[in-house]
């Protein structure tokens, strides 16, 4: 007699675990499947976890969760070859409750989060791959796992199987992603003394800083680098669209080395010892790449549904909220004992009405716009650096002459008009 659950969640990442947690808490009999040796064993994130969305699930989680540092400063460095134009905000309101965000190491954090779901009553089974959805009369009725006699049944299956959602693809919810719908991120975790980190990043004890690296960090290809402080390590990484790596024939780990050795970056990590190297895909297609997220007896959450806000490097928070919204819908569906697509569609509606749908819509054209118009990263960031250098250098020229020179660095009249047009266009895309 095969086992049957109320719900099977595939994948114990932020989306799946959030969903399983909420379901178990409501008394739903839920199986949480994880293919890794433990939750987090397969998961990679630059490392920023936003407080709000998890707080809605586990109030005050930050008092016990394995977090690295609360972020008090967010810097943006627009890099040229040997210079950086830096913008930053630091605020001590972020150094205390309720906090804004934290750095986390996923292997630690995901295990903790999954354990919380287990405490609520979810059954976590690791080292188990869900090979395919079991479909009967057009309805998903369970999953086939790679365990012996591994068919498991449920009223509803939640696909939280990440960016490589082979299951959503199997159901025809989306075609294979295109190389311009995913970013390949590589990163290293580098060990450094706590005190050294705090000195180099200008931090009080225990506080954290994030630095986003734009421009020369990716050799002008669309993407970003990042440098985040953990307790006694820093995470440094770089992500570009896979299509960009293909077009420019760049090896991702060589790009990572390039970032590590950039003169504006190297002093932060000097003398540190790399302790882990990681690669992962980020779904960056946004709104236009969202697959079908609901079917008969099935919903799709998190990365599997392309729920990433690439502009604000948000993902795990969208994942958790999508998991929570899916759980709310499943709880309602259980009351009516109706797991049809029509009933489960409430999840899609809630998703699109939430900040997730709104933000994805807002930035729906950003990735493709900046991918197509390469001048922003290739041309304007270096130009900004030259202009700042010119303006700030004291060399005996009068300030009027300076302004004239800076004006000249913007190019001919035609180029200036183009610049103005480009700035307006960029504003329209992100506004």
């Amino acid at each position, binding site marked *: 007699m095969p086992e049957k659950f109320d719900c099977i969640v595939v994948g114990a990442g932020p989306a799946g675990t959030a969903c399983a947690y909420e379901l178990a808490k409501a008394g739903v009999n839920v199986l949480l499947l994880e293919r890794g040796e433990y939750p987090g064993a397969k998961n990679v994130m630059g490392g920023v976890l936003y407080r709000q969305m998890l707080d809605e699930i586990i109030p005050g989680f930050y008092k016990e969760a394995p977090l690295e540092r609360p972020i008090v400063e967010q810097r943006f460095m627009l890099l040229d070859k040997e210079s950086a134009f830096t913008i930053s905000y630091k605020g001590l309101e972020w150094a205390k409750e309720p906090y804004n965000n934290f750095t986390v190491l996923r292997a630690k954090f995901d295990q903790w989060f999954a354990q919380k779901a287990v405490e609520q009553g979810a059954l976590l*089974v*690791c080292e188990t791959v869900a090979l395919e959805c079991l479909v009967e009369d057009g309805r998903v009725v369970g999953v086939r796992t790679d365990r012996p*006699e591994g*068919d498991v049944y449920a009223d509803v299956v939640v696909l939280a199987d990440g960016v490589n959602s082979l299951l959503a693809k199997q159901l025809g919810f989306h075609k*294979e992603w295109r190389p311009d719908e995913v970013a390949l991120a590589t990163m290293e975790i580098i060990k450094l003394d706590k005190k050294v980190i705090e000195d180099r990043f200008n931090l009080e004890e225990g506080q954290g800083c994030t630095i986003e690296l734009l421009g020369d960090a990716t050799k002008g290809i669309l993407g970003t680098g990042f440098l985040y402080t953990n307790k006694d390590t820093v995470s440094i990484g770089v992500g570009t669209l896979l299509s960009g790596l293909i077009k420019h024939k*760049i090896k*991702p*780990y060589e790009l990572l080395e390039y970032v590590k050795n950039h003169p504006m970056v190297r002093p932060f990590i000097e003398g540190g010892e790399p302790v882990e*190297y990681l690669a992962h895909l980020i779904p960056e297609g946004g709104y236009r790449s969202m697959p079908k997220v609901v079917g008969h007896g099935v919903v799709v959450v998190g990365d599997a549904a392309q729920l990433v806000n690439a502009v604000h490097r948000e993902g795990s928070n969208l994942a958790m909220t999508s998991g929570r919204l899916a759980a709310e819908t499943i709880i309602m569906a259980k009351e009516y004992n109706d797991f049809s697509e029509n009933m489960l569609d409430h999840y899609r509606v809630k998703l699109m009405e939430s900040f997730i749908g709104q933000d994805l819509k807002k930035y729906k054209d950003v990735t493709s716009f900046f991918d197509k118009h390469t001048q922003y990263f290739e041309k304007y960031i270096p130009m900004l650096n030259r202009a700042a250098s010119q303006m700030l250098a004291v060399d005996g020229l009068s300030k009027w002459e300076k302004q004239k020179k800076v004006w000249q660095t913007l190019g001919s009249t035609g180029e200036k008009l183009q610049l103005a047009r480009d700035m307006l266009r960029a504003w329209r895309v992100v506004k």
Partner: protein
Amino acid sequence: MAEPVKKAQPAKKTETVKRRQQPAAQQEPTKAETIEEKQYLLRFRADTKSHLHVKDPDICLTKCPDKICTIFCPAEVYKWEEVRMHVGYEGCHECGSCRIGCPHQNIDWVYPKGGHGIVFRLG
């Protein structure tokens, strides 16, 4: 489903448990500059069978002059050896880039068996 387990199980007999070490002679801490050094930092529980397969080796040989997978794979899993593609699946990060980026959709990509493959300890 037989015997659900709540916790990670120890490695089974058929598995090769790998914890690659840095070369002992090296005194200075590694800077992990090369991909080989980066891969040494990782823990893998490799299966005995590959989860990655080139569907039609002839396509790599005759229709794919760039062999771009040998460039963009972040773990250098794919290496061209004169007439054939060597697939070092043991070092795979399971990122999915090869499946999506192969210009001929010539890679059959599945997840390694449960509990196998890469084991991230931190990030």
